[in-house]
Protein backbone atom coordinates (compact mmCIF):
# COMPACT_ATOMS: atom_id res chain seq x y z
CA UNK A 1 0.00 0.00 0.00
CA UNK A 2 2.74 2.48 0.97
CA UNK A 3 6.34 2.55 -0.22
CA UNK A 4 8.68 5.23 1.12
CA UNK A 5 12.12 5.29 -0.48
CA UNK A 6 15.15 7.37 0.56
CA UNK A 7 12.99 10.23 1.75
CA UNK A 8 14.64 13.49 2.83
CA UNK A 9 12.45 16.16 4.36
CA UNK A 10 13.24 19.62 5.75
CA UNK A 11 11.32 22.10 7.84
CA UNK A 12 12.52 25.72 7.63
CA UNK A 13 15.81 24.52 6.11
CA UNK A 14 16.40 22.06 8.98
CA UNK A 15 16.74 18.54 7.69
CA UNK A 16 14.46 16.26 9.71
CA UNK A 17 14.13 13.01 7.74
CA UNK A 18 17.33 11.40 6.42
CA UNK A 19 17.00 8.83 3.66
CA UNK A 20 13.99 7.23 5.30
CA UNK A 21 12.63 4.06 3.73
CA UNK A 22 9.58 2.15 4.91
CA UNK A 23 7.20 -0.33 3.31
CA UNK A 24 3.67 -0.98 4.57
CA UNK A 25 1.43 -3.67 3.13
CA UNK A 26 -2.36 -3.59 3.13
CA UNK A 27 -3.82 -4.71 6.45
CA UNK A 28 -0.63 -4.11 8.45
CA UNK A 29 -0.33 -2.07 11.62
CA UNK A 30 2.97 -0.24 12.09
CA UNK A 31 4.00 1.70 15.17
CA UNK A 32 6.57 4.47 15.03
CA UNK A 33 8.30 5.29 18.30
CA UNK A 34 11.18 7.56 19.09
CA UNK A 35 12.39 10.41 21.26
CA UNK A 36 11.27 14.02 20.79
CA UNK A 37 12.53 15.54 17.56
CA UNK A 38 13.31 12.22 15.92
CA UNK A 39 10.99 12.89 12.95
CA UNK A 40 7.86 10.96 13.92
CA UNK A 41 5.40 13.79 13.33
CA UNK A 42 7.36 14.89 10.27
CA UNK A 43 6.69 11.63 8.45
CA UNK A 44 3.02 11.80 9.47
CA UNK A 45 2.60 15.34 8.11
CA UNK A 46 4.70 14.67 5.02
CA UNK A 47 2.43 11.77 4.12
CA UNK A 48 -0.63 14.01 4.50
CA UNK A 49 0.97 16.74 2.33
CA UNK A 50 1.49 19.51 4.88
CA UNK A 51 3.12 22.34 2.87
CA UNK A 52 5.29 23.30 5.86
CA UNK A 53 7.32 20.13 5.24
CA UNK A 54 9.58 20.31 2.18
CA UNK A 55 10.45 17.05 0.48
CA UNK A 56 14.05 17.42 -0.73
CA UNK A 57 14.35 14.03 -2.40
CA UNK A 58 13.02 10.51 -2.36
CA UNK A 59 9.70 9.00 -3.31
CA UNK A 60 6.43 7.86 -1.77
CA UNK A 61 4.09 5.52 -3.56
CA UNK A 62 0.53 5.08 -2.25
CA UNK A 63 -1.47 2.31 -3.87
CA UNK A 64 0.66 2.68 -6.99
CA UNK A 65 0.30 6.48 -7.20
CA UNK A 66 3.04 9.04 -6.68
CA UNK A 67 1.88 10.58 -3.41
CA UNK A 68 4.24 13.53 -3.72
CA UNK A 69 2.40 14.61 -6.88
CA UNK A 70 -0.90 14.76 -5.04
CA UNK A 71 -2.43 17.71 -3.15
CA UNK A 72 -3.62 17.10 0.45
CA UNK A 73 -7.25 17.07 -0.76
CA UNK A 74 -6.50 14.37 -3.33
CA UNK A 75 -4.57 12.29 -0.78
CA UNK A 76 -7.54 12.36 1.56
CA UNK A 77 -10.02 11.51 -1.18
CA UNK A 78 -7.79 8.60 -2.19
CA UNK A 79 -8.05 7.20 1.33
CA UNK A 80 -5.24 8.67 3.44
CA UNK A 81 -6.18 10.05 6.85
CA UNK A 82 -4.00 11.86 9.38
CA UNK A 83 -5.31 12.13 12.94
CA UNK A 84 -3.61 15.29 14.20
CA UNK A 85 -1.64 15.48 17.41
CA UNK A 86 -2.95 19.03 17.83
CA UNK A 87 -6.31 19.24 16.05
CA UNK A 88 -6.94 22.72 14.66
CA UNK A 89 -9.65 24.97 16.08
CA UNK A 90 -11.99 26.55 13.53
CA UNK A 91 -14.07 29.28 15.20
CA UNK A 92 -17.40 30.09 13.59
CA UNK A 93 -17.88 26.64 11.99
CA UNK A 94 -20.00 24.16 13.93
CA UNK A 95 -18.65 20.65 14.28
CA UNK A 96 -21.80 19.07 12.83
CA UNK A 97 -21.68 21.26 9.73
CA UNK A 98 -17.96 20.57 9.30
CA UNK A 99 -18.37 16.79 9.66
CA UNK A 100 -21.17 16.78 7.11
CA UNK A 101 -19.05 18.82 4.70
CA UNK A 102 -16.06 16.48 4.90
CA UNK A 103 -18.33 13.47 4.44
CA UNK A 104 -19.97 15.05 1.43
CA UNK A 105 -16.60 15.89 -0.15
CA UNK A 106 -15.76 12.19 -0.05
CA UNK A 107 -19.22 11.14 -1.22
CA UNK A 108 -18.96 13.54 -4.17
CA UNK A 109 -15.59 12.04 -5.07
CA UNK A 110 -17.18 8.58 -4.95
CA UNK A 111 -20.01 9.73 -7.23
CA UNK A 112 -22.59 9.59 -4.45
CA UNK A 113 -25.26 12.16 -3.56
CA UNK A 114 -24.72 14.33 -0.47
CA UNK A 115 -25.88 12.65 2.71
CA UNK A 116 -29.35 13.82 3.75
CA UNK A 117 -29.63 15.80 6.99
CA UNK A 118 -31.73 13.13 8.74
CA UNK A 119 -29.44 10.28 7.77
CA UNK A 120 -26.40 12.28 8.81
CA UNK A 121 -27.82 13.11 12.23
CA UNK A 122 -28.71 9.46 12.80
CA UNK A 123 -25.20 8.38 11.84
CA UNK A 124 -23.63 11.10 13.97
CA UNK A 125 -25.69 10.10 17.02
CA UNK A 126 -24.74 6.46 16.54
CA UNK A 127 -21.01 7.17 16.21
CA UNK A 128 -21.00 9.74 19.03
CA UNK A 129 -22.67 7.31 21.41
CA UNK A 130 -20.11 4.65 20.56
CA UNK A 131 -17.21 7.05 21.11
CA UNK A 132 -18.86 8.51 24.24
CA UNK A 133 -18.88 11.97 22.68
CA UNK A 134 -21.54 14.31 24.12
CA UNK A 135 -23.86 15.15 21.22
CA UNK A 136 -23.99 18.83 22.16
CA UNK A 137 -20.30 19.00 21.21
CA UNK A 138 -21.36 18.99 17.56
CA UNK A 139 -23.17 22.31 17.93
CA UNK A 140 -19.95 23.90 19.17
CA UNK A 141 -17.32 25.28 16.81
CA UNK A 142 -14.79 22.76 15.49
CA UNK A 143 -12.33 21.85 18.27
CA UNK A 144 -12.94 25.26 19.87
CA UNK A 145 -13.13 24.94 23.63
CA UNK A 146 -12.95 21.14 23.35
CA UNK A 147 -11.01 19.31 26.04
CA UNK A 148 -7.89 17.41 24.96
CA UNK A 149 -9.86 14.17 25.05
CA UNK A 150 -12.76 15.60 23.04
CA UNK A 151 -10.36 16.82 20.35
CA UNK A 152 -8.78 13.40 20.00
CA UNK A 153 -12.13 11.63 19.96
CA UNK A 154 -13.26 14.07 17.28
CA UNK A 155 -10.29 13.00 15.19
CA UNK A 156 -11.26 9.34 15.60
CA UNK A 157 -14.85 10.22 14.73
CA UNK A 158 -13.71 11.84 11.47
CA UNK A 159 -11.56 8.82 10.75
CA UNK A 160 -14.58 6.59 11.23
CA UNK A 161 -16.87 8.72 9.06
CA UNK A 162 -14.39 8.94 6.18
CA UNK A 163 -13.52 5.23 6.18
CA UNK A 164 -9.90 5.65 4.97
CA UNK A 165 -7.53 3.02 3.56
CA UNK A 166 -4.47 4.29 5.40
CA UNK A 167 -4.76 5.79 8.87
CA UNK A 168 -1.89 7.75 10.40
CA UNK A 169 -2.38 8.50 14.09
CA UNK A 170 0.00 11.17 15.31
CA UNK A 171 0.25 10.80 19.09
CA UNK A 172 -3.49 10.28 19.41
CA UNK A 173 -2.88 8.90 22.92
CA UNK A 174 -1.47 12.17 24.27
CA UNK A 175 -4.02 14.07 26.33
CA UNK A 176 -6.29 11.06 26.79
CA UNK A 177 -7.21 9.69 30.21
CA UNK A 178 -7.35 5.92 30.74
CA UNK A 179 -11.05 5.61 29.93
CA UNK A 180 -10.86 7.81 26.84
CA UNK A 181 -7.79 5.91 25.66
CA UNK A 182 -9.69 2.62 25.87
CA UNK A 183 -12.74 3.98 24.03
CA UNK A 184 -10.50 5.44 21.32
CA UNK A 185 -8.44 2.26 21.00
CA UNK A 186 -11.59 0.13 20.82
CA UNK A 187 -12.91 2.30 17.99
CA UNK A 188 -9.62 2.02 16.10
CA UNK A 189 -9.54 -1.76 16.65
CA UNK A 190 -13.05 -1.95 15.16
CA UNK A 191 -11.69 -0.21 12.09
CA UNK A 192 -8.78 -2.62 11.64
CA UNK A 193 -9.30 -4.76 8.58
CA UNK A 194 -7.50 -6.63 5.85
CA UNK A 195 -8.15 -3.67 3.55
CA UNK A 196 -6.80 -0.96 5.80
CA UNK A 197 -3.35 -0.12 7.12
CA UNK A 198 -2.43 1.84 10.22
CA UNK A 199 0.58 3.88 11.23
CA UNK A 200 0.57 4.69 14.93
CA UNK A 201 2.99 7.40 16.02
CA UNK A 202 3.46 7.33 19.77
CA UNK A 203 5.89 7.90 22.62
CA UNK A 204 4.41 5.29 24.89
CA UNK A 205 3.54 1.64 25.14
CA UNK A 206 0.08 2.19 26.58
CA UNK A 207 -1.77 2.72 23.26
CA UNK A 208 0.08 -0.24 21.74
CA UNK A 209 -1.20 -2.45 24.54
CA UNK A 210 -4.69 -1.84 23.16
CA UNK A 211 -3.87 -1.71 19.44
CA UNK A 212 -1.32 -4.41 18.81
CA UNK A 213 1.10 -3.49 16.02
CA UNK A 214 2.57 -5.99 13.55
CA UNK A 215 5.77 -3.95 13.33
CA UNK A 216 7.46 -1.39 15.54
CA UNK A 217 10.04 1.07 14.19
CA UNK A 218 12.34 3.17 16.31
CA UNK A 219 13.13 6.62 14.86
CA UNK A 220 16.24 8.58 15.67
CA UNK A 221 17.65 11.56 13.75
CA UNK A 222 15.11 11.10 11.01
CA UNK A 223 15.98 7.48 10.33
CA UNK A 224 14.72 4.07 11.38
CA UNK A 225 17.44 2.69 13.63
CA UNK A 226 15.65 -0.50 14.63
CA UNK A 227 12.57 -2.45 13.60
CA UNK A 228 10.90 -5.40 15.23
CA UNK A 229 7.63 -6.87 16.40
CA UNK A 230 5.49 -5.60 19.28
CA UNK A 231 8.01 -6.85 21.85
CA UNK A 232 10.32 -4.01 20.75
CA UNK A 233 7.81 -1.47 22.14
CA UNK A 234 7.80 -3.29 25.48
CA UNK A 235 11.58 -3.25 25.59
CA UNK A 236 11.74 0.47 24.78
CA UNK A 237 9.18 1.16 27.48
CA UNK A 238 11.42 -0.57 30.04
CA UNK A 239 14.84 0.52 28.82
CA UNK A 240 14.22 3.83 27.07
CA UNK A 241 15.77 4.95 23.78
CA UNK A 242 19.34 5.43 24.95
Amino acid sequence: MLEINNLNVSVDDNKILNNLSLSIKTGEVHAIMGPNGSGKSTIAHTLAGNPNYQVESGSISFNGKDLLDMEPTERSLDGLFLAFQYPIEIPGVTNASYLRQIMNSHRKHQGKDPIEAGAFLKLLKEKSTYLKIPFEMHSRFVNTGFSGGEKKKNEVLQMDLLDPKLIIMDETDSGLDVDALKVTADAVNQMKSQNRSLIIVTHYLRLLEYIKPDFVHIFQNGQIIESGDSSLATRIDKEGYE
Partner: protein
Amino acid sequence: MNKDQCSITFNGTTSIIENSSTFISISGVEEFIETKILNIEVDESKTTQRVNLILDNCTDEPINFEINLKINENAKLEFLDESIYSNDSNIKLNTTLHKNSYFELYKLNIYKNKNINLFYHNCSLLENSSFKDYSFSNGSKENLNKTIINLNDINSKYLGSGVSINNSTNSNNEVQIRHNTKSASSDCYFKTVAKGSSKVNFDGIIFVDNHCSKTVSNQVSKGLLIGSESKINLVPKLEIYNDDVECSHGAASGQPDKNTLFYLTSRGISKEDAEQIYVEGFLSEFFATIDNDLMTEKAKKFINLNT
Protein backbone atom coordinates in the same frame (compact mmCIF):
# COMPACT_ATOMS: atom_id res chain seq x y z
CA MET B 1 -48.30 41.38 6.45
CA ASN B 2 -48.39 41.39 10.22
CA LYS B 3 -50.60 44.18 11.56
CA ASP B 4 -47.64 45.63 13.44
CA GLN B 5 -45.54 46.04 10.32
CA CYS B 6 -44.84 48.91 8.03
CA SER B 7 -43.26 48.56 4.63
CA ILE B 8 -41.56 51.36 2.69
CA THR B 9 -40.75 50.66 -0.93
CA PHE B 10 -38.72 53.09 -3.01
CA ASN B 11 -38.90 52.77 -6.75
CA GLY B 12 -36.53 55.26 -8.25
CA THR B 13 -37.89 58.59 -7.05
CA THR B 14 -41.21 57.35 -5.72
CA SER B 15 -42.12 55.70 -2.47
CA ILE B 16 -44.84 53.24 -1.60
CA ILE B 17 -45.88 53.09 1.99
CA GLU B 18 -47.84 50.20 3.41
CA ASN B 19 -48.60 50.80 7.01
CA SER B 20 -50.98 48.69 8.99
CA SER B 21 -49.63 49.50 12.40
CA THR B 22 -51.40 52.08 14.51
CA PHE B 23 -48.20 52.59 16.44
CA ILE B 24 -46.18 53.83 13.48
CA SER B 25 -46.92 57.15 11.85
CA ILE B 26 -45.29 58.39 8.68
CA SER B 27 -45.31 61.94 7.40
CA GLY B 28 -43.79 63.65 4.41
CA VAL B 29 -45.08 61.08 1.88
CA GLU B 30 -46.87 63.56 -0.38
CA GLU B 31 -43.92 65.94 -0.49
CA PHE B 32 -41.37 63.15 -0.77
CA ILE B 33 -40.74 63.48 -4.50
CA GLU B 34 -39.56 67.04 -3.88
CA THR B 35 -38.08 66.84 -0.41
CA LYS B 36 -36.73 63.26 -0.41
CA ILE B 37 -37.45 63.26 3.30
CA LEU B 38 -39.67 60.87 5.27
CA ASN B 39 -40.51 61.17 8.94
CA ILE B 40 -41.32 58.04 10.89
CA GLU B 41 -42.50 58.06 14.47
CA VAL B 42 -42.95 54.97 16.60
CA ASP B 43 -45.07 54.95 19.75
CA GLU B 44 -45.16 52.73 22.81
CA SER B 45 -46.81 49.36 22.28
CA LYS B 46 -46.73 45.95 23.89
CA THR B 47 -45.17 44.33 20.85
CA THR B 48 -42.09 45.25 18.87
CA GLN B 49 -42.99 47.29 15.79
CA ARG B 50 -41.37 46.44 12.49
CA VAL B 51 -40.38 48.58 9.53
CA ASN B 52 -39.18 46.95 6.31
CA LEU B 53 -37.26 49.09 3.86
CA ILE B 54 -37.21 47.82 0.29
CA LEU B 55 -35.49 49.42 -2.66
CA ASP B 56 -37.23 48.29 -5.82
CA ASN B 57 -34.65 49.28 -8.39
CA CYS B 58 -36.34 48.97 -11.73
CA THR B 59 -35.08 52.33 -12.96
CA ASP B 60 -31.58 53.64 -13.58
CA GLU B 61 -32.12 56.57 -11.24
CA PRO B 62 -29.75 56.99 -8.32
CA ILE B 63 -31.51 56.73 -5.01
CA ASN B 64 -31.16 59.61 -2.57
CA PHE B 65 -33.35 60.12 0.47
CA GLU B 66 -33.38 60.85 4.16
CA ILE B 67 -35.37 59.24 6.93
CA ASN B 68 -35.97 60.92 10.26
CA LEU B 69 -36.83 58.24 12.75
CA LYS B 70 -38.24 59.05 16.16
CA ILE B 71 -38.67 56.21 18.61
CA ASN B 72 -40.78 57.51 21.44
CA GLU B 73 -40.64 56.68 25.14
CA ASN B 74 -40.99 52.93 25.85
CA ALA B 75 -41.36 52.14 22.13
CA LYS B 76 -39.66 49.14 20.52
CA LEU B 77 -38.68 48.99 16.88
CA GLU B 78 -37.05 46.50 14.57
CA PHE B 79 -35.96 48.02 11.27
CA LEU B 80 -34.96 45.73 8.43
CA ASP B 81 -33.27 46.88 5.24
CA GLU B 82 -32.61 44.04 2.80
CA SER B 83 -32.25 46.25 -0.24
CA ILE B 84 -30.25 45.36 -3.29
CA TYR B 85 -28.71 48.60 -4.50
CA SER B 86 -28.49 48.41 -8.29
CA ASN B 87 -27.57 52.07 -8.65
CA ASP B 88 -25.73 54.83 -6.88
CA SER B 89 -27.27 55.80 -3.58
CA ASN B 90 -27.00 58.38 -0.86
CA ILE B 91 -29.09 57.55 2.16
CA LYS B 92 -29.28 59.34 5.48
CA LEU B 93 -30.92 58.07 8.60
CA ASN B 94 -31.39 60.32 11.60
CA THR B 95 -32.60 58.48 14.66
CA THR B 96 -33.61 59.59 18.12
CA LEU B 97 -34.27 57.04 20.83
CA HIS B 98 -36.29 58.43 23.71
CA LYS B 99 -36.35 57.23 27.30
CA ASN B 100 -36.57 53.44 27.74
CA SER B 101 -36.91 52.83 24.02
CA TYR B 102 -35.36 49.94 22.14
CA PHE B 103 -34.16 49.80 18.56
CA GLU B 104 -32.74 47.01 16.42
CA LEU B 105 -31.45 47.91 12.97
CA TYR B 106 -30.61 45.14 10.50
CA LYS B 107 -29.02 46.16 7.25
CA LEU B 108 -28.29 43.31 4.86
CA ASN B 109 -27.37 45.11 1.69
CA ILE B 110 -26.00 44.05 -1.64
CA TYR B 111 -24.26 46.60 -3.82
CA LYS B 112 -22.99 46.46 -7.39
CA ASN B 113 -19.30 47.00 -7.92
CA LYS B 114 -19.79 49.76 -10.52
CA ASN B 115 -21.61 52.13 -8.17
CA ILE B 116 -21.03 54.69 -5.49
CA ASN B 117 -23.05 54.09 -2.35
CA LEU B 118 -23.16 56.26 0.72
CA PHE B 119 -24.94 55.54 3.99
CA TYR B 120 -24.91 57.96 6.85
CA HIS B 121 -26.56 57.31 10.21
CA ASN B 122 -26.73 59.81 13.03
CA CYS B 123 -28.28 58.38 16.17
CA SER B 124 -28.96 59.96 19.55
CA LEU B 125 -29.82 57.89 22.58
CA LEU B 126 -31.61 59.22 25.63
CA GLU B 127 -31.98 57.78 29.13
CA ASN B 128 -32.01 54.01 29.42
CA SER B 129 -32.48 53.50 25.69
CA SER B 130 -30.79 50.72 23.79
CA PHE B 131 -29.71 50.34 20.16
CA LYS B 132 -28.48 47.18 18.47
CA ASP B 133 -27.02 47.91 15.07
CA TYR B 134 -26.22 45.04 12.67
CA SER B 135 -24.85 45.79 9.26
CA PHE B 136 -23.89 43.30 6.56
CA SER B 137 -22.77 44.50 3.17
CA ASN B 138 -20.69 43.65 0.20
CA GLY B 139 -18.69 46.45 -1.29
CA SER B 140 -19.30 48.67 -4.28
CA LYS B 141 -16.91 50.68 -6.40
CA GLU B 142 -16.90 53.34 -3.69
CA ASN B 143 -18.74 52.50 -0.51
CA LEU B 144 -18.93 54.85 2.45
CA ASN B 145 -20.68 53.90 5.66
CA LYS B 146 -20.61 56.42 8.47
CA THR B 147 -22.35 55.98 11.79
CA ILE B 148 -22.34 58.54 14.58
CA ILE B 149 -23.72 57.43 17.91
CA ASN B 150 -24.42 60.01 20.58
CA LEU B 151 -24.96 58.46 24.00
CA ASN B 152 -26.61 61.47 25.59
CA ASP B 153 -28.23 60.13 28.75
CA ILE B 154 -27.36 57.73 31.53
CA ASN B 155 -27.69 53.98 30.97
CA SER B 156 -27.96 54.35 27.23
CA LYS B 157 -26.45 51.40 25.40
CA TYR B 158 -25.11 50.78 21.93
CA LEU B 159 -24.11 47.45 20.40
CA GLY B 160 -22.80 47.68 16.86
CA SER B 161 -21.70 44.78 14.66
CA GLY B 162 -20.57 45.35 11.12
CA VAL B 163 -19.56 42.86 8.46
CA SER B 164 -18.15 44.10 5.17
CA ILE B 165 -17.32 41.63 2.40
CA ASN B 166 -15.47 43.20 -0.49
CA ASN B 167 -14.45 42.00 -3.90
CA SER B 168 -12.18 44.45 -5.70
CA THR B 169 -13.94 47.41 -4.17
CA ASN B 170 -13.15 50.42 -2.03
CA SER B 171 -14.96 50.43 1.25
CA ASN B 172 -14.67 53.14 3.86
CA ASN B 173 -16.31 52.60 7.19
CA GLU B 174 -16.43 54.95 10.12
CA VAL B 175 -18.10 54.49 13.47
CA GLN B 176 -17.98 57.35 15.94
CA ILE B 177 -19.28 56.58 19.39
CA ARG B 178 -19.59 59.68 21.50
CA HIS B 179 -20.08 59.18 25.21
CA ASN B 180 -21.66 62.49 26.21
CA THR B 181 -23.01 61.27 29.53
CA LYS B 182 -21.87 59.21 32.49
CA SER B 183 -22.85 55.53 32.90
CA ALA B 184 -23.42 54.71 29.25
CA SER B 185 -21.99 51.70 27.48
CA SER B 186 -20.99 50.77 23.97
CA ASP B 187 -19.63 47.71 22.16
CA CYS B 188 -18.48 47.91 18.59
CA TYR B 189 -17.36 44.96 16.45
CA PHE B 190 -16.26 45.25 12.86
CA LYS B 191 -15.15 42.44 10.60
CA THR B 192 -14.16 42.64 7.00
CA VAL B 193 -13.01 40.36 4.22
CA ALA B 194 -11.03 41.94 1.40
CA LYS B 195 -10.81 39.97 -1.83
CA GLY B 196 -9.19 40.79 -5.17
CA SER B 197 -7.80 44.31 -5.14
CA SER B 198 -10.15 45.62 -2.45
CA LYS B 199 -9.18 48.42 -0.14
CA VAL B 200 -11.06 48.51 3.13
CA ASN B 201 -10.69 51.20 5.76
CA PHE B 202 -12.23 51.20 9.20
CA ASP B 203 -12.02 54.14 11.57
CA GLY B 204 -13.40 53.30 14.99
CA ILE B 205 -13.64 56.38 17.12
CA ILE B 206 -14.55 56.32 20.80
CA PHE B 207 -14.94 59.70 22.44
CA VAL B 208 -15.51 60.00 26.19
CA ASP B 209 -16.12 63.51 27.52
CA ASN B 210 -14.50 64.68 30.78
CA HIS B 211 -17.67 64.42 32.90
CA CYS B 212 -18.53 60.90 31.66
CA SER B 213 -17.45 58.65 34.51
CA LYS B 214 -18.52 54.96 34.66
CA THR B 215 -18.32 54.69 30.89
CA VAL B 216 -17.86 51.20 29.49
CA SER B 217 -16.74 50.98 25.88
CA ASN B 218 -15.17 48.18 23.85
CA GLN B 219 -14.14 48.03 20.23
CA VAL B 220 -12.80 45.11 18.20
CA SER B 221 -11.96 45.24 14.51
CA LYS B 222 -10.62 42.34 12.47
CA GLY B 223 -9.78 41.95 8.82
CA LEU B 224 -9.12 38.98 6.58
CA LEU B 225 -7.04 39.47 3.46
CA ILE B 226 -7.87 37.18 0.56
CA GLY B 227 -5.76 37.86 -2.47
CA SER B 228 -2.31 39.39 -2.67
CA GLU B 229 -3.49 42.84 -3.82
CA SER B 230 -6.08 43.52 -1.15
CA LYS B 231 -5.50 46.02 1.64
CA ILE B 232 -7.13 46.53 5.01
CA ASN B 233 -6.55 49.50 7.25
CA LEU B 234 -8.08 49.25 10.73
CA VAL B 235 -7.67 52.35 12.83
CA PRO B 236 -8.96 52.46 16.40
CA LYS B 237 -9.00 56.01 17.77
CA LEU B 238 -9.74 56.60 21.43
CA GLU B 239 -10.22 60.07 22.87
CA ILE B 240 -10.86 59.65 26.58
CA TYR B 241 -10.97 62.60 28.95
CA ASN B 242 -12.07 60.82 32.13
CA ASP B 243 -10.10 58.33 34.26
CA ASP B 244 -13.08 56.48 35.72
CA VAL B 245 -13.85 54.43 32.61
CA GLU B 246 -13.46 50.89 31.27
CA CYS B 247 -12.41 51.09 27.66
CA SER B 248 -10.65 48.63 25.40
CA HIS B 249 -9.86 48.21 21.76
CA GLY B 250 -8.23 45.63 19.54
CA ALA B 251 -7.46 45.46 15.86
CA ALA B 252 -5.95 42.63 13.83
CA SER B 253 -5.74 41.70 10.19
CA GLY B 254 -4.04 38.97 8.24
CA GLN B 255 -4.35 36.17 5.74
CA PRO B 256 -6.16 32.89 6.42
CA ASP B 257 -4.25 30.60 8.76
CA LYS B 258 -2.33 28.08 6.64
CA ASN B 259 -2.57 25.36 9.29
CA THR B 260 -6.36 25.63 9.29
CA LEU B 261 -6.49 25.43 5.50
CA PHE B 262 -4.24 22.36 5.60
CA TYR B 263 -6.43 20.74 8.25
CA LEU B 264 -9.50 21.23 6.05
CA THR B 265 -7.84 20.03 2.85
CA SER B 266 -6.41 17.00 4.68
CA ARG B 267 -10.07 15.96 5.16
CA GLY B 268 -10.78 15.99 1.44
CA ILE B 269 -12.12 19.53 1.13
CA SER B 270 -10.87 21.42 -1.92
CA LYS B 271 -8.64 24.49 -1.46
CA GLU B 272 -11.44 26.78 -2.67
CA ASP B 273 -14.03 25.27 -0.33
CA ALA B 274 -11.55 25.34 2.57
CA GLU B 275 -11.07 29.07 2.03
CA GLN B 276 -14.83 29.56 1.85
CA ILE B 277 -15.34 27.66 5.12
CA TYR B 278 -12.60 29.72 6.73
CA VAL B 279 -14.16 33.02 5.63
CA GLU B 280 -17.64 31.97 6.76
CA GLY B 281 -16.23 30.93 10.12
CA PHE B 282 -14.37 34.22 10.46
CA LEU B 283 -17.53 36.23 9.82
CA SER B 284 -19.90 34.01 11.75
CA GLU B 285 -18.58 34.88 15.19
CA PHE B 286 -21.12 37.70 15.28
CA PHE B 287 -24.09 35.40 15.31
CA ALA B 288 -23.82 34.88 19.04
CA THR B 289 -24.62 38.57 19.58
CA ILE B 290 -27.89 38.38 17.60
CA ASP B 291 -30.70 37.14 19.82
CA ASN B 292 -33.25 37.14 17.00
CA ASP B 293 -33.50 33.74 15.28
CA LEU B 294 -34.98 35.03 12.03
CA MET B 295 -32.29 37.68 11.69
CA THR B 296 -29.57 35.18 12.54
CA GLU B 297 -30.79 32.99 9.69
CA LYS B 298 -30.89 35.97 7.34
CA ALA B 299 -27.36 36.97 8.35
CA LYS B 300 -26.08 33.41 7.82
CA LYS B 301 -27.70 33.30 4.40
CA PHE B 302 -26.22 36.68 3.50
CA ILE B 303 -22.70 35.58 4.42
CA ASN B 304 -23.13 32.28 2.63
CA LEU B 305 -24.26 33.98 -0.58
CA ASN B 306 -21.67 36.74 -0.53
CA THR B 307 -18.44 34.97 0.38
